């Protein structure tokens, strides 16, 4: 993240982005991890995480963002999220049925409570965040709407 990179937007946008992008990422992670306690959850948190990387890509150009998360890694994370979610559901068969909440429920209003729900939230956030980021990367790399240039 250097200033002499001519790609991307102006210096003002880059400076503000450098200050805010970490906060946005942390806020997304907070939304995901507290999905069973406060409003939010895996879907919203995943989209916020994806938006933080998209923010980076819009401000600094695609090379800086793709150096952090490239498209194969995004696809990989999406698949990991899907498999994780499905395997949490399948492990429920050990105790009886699909999507059994097999972990101890714990006390309500504590971070480590509610059994499998936080794990499902994390899996869904992987899936949603990486999936939407992959879509955005595909649209940017393939230059949507500029058929005349190719």
């Amino acid at each position, binding site marked *: 993240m250097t200033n002499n990179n001519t790609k991307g937007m102006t210096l003002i946008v880059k400076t503000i982005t450098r200050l805010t992008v970490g906060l946005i990422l942390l806020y997304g992670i907070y*939304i995901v991890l507290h*999905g*069973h*306690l*406060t*409003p*939010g*959850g*895996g*879907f*919203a948190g995943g*989209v*916020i995480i*994806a*938006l933080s990387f*998209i923010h980076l890509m*819009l401000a600094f150009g695609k090379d800086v963002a793709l150096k952090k998360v490239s498209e194969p890694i995004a*696809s990989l994370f*999406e698949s990991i999220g*899907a498999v994780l*979610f*499905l395997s949490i*559901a399948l492990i429920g068969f050990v105790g009886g049925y*699909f*999507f059994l*909440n097999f972990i101890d*429920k*714990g*006390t*309500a*209003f504590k971070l480590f*409570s*509610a*059994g*499998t*729900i936080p794990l*499902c*939230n994390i899996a*869904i956030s992987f*899936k*949603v965040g990486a*999936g*939407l980021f*992959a*879509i*955005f990367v*595909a*649209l*940017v*790399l*393939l*230059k*949507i*709407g*500029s058929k*005349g240039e*190719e």
Partner: protein
Amino acid sequence: MFELYALLLFMIAAAIIAVQIKDLLSSVIAVGAVGLGLSVVFLILKAPDLAITQLVVELLCVIILIRAVVKRETTTTEDTYGFLTVIAGLIFVGVFLFFVHPALKELPNFGEPLMRVAKNFIEVGQAKTGASNLVASVILDFRAYDTLGEATVLFTAVIGVLVVLRRTGRKRKDEVIKDDE
């Protein structure tokens, strides 16, 4: 309830602007205004989960649409609606309202009685799942199967986008593909 109706009117006006305006960028921004109004409506109706999700998804969609519009050469649309098109649209809306009217009359009053299943979820939700956010306990425990289906839909959508937009297929060994990035 006043602010709800004001927001609904705002959203309807923004939607009409989005359809009718000639400039594509203004149209996209009007679509964004509809989504923002919907997010505030969810907040007023005390559904913060939906409000957050609606807001962030709307942001993502508007970003993608703006990028798609700005890169285009033609940024205005010349489509005009003929007299017959408007008449046909009004007739179809009338027919739809005529047939949907009995169903709408059967709906319970706005937010008043709780359905039996929903009441049960509210009563036993926290004790059974341990999640203090009732929405999370419904979508990830009672109705987790639906969430799995929704995740599958998103997965399929991502695969579809990546397949359709991929410019070059798998390269053969002797094939050289010009990379113009």
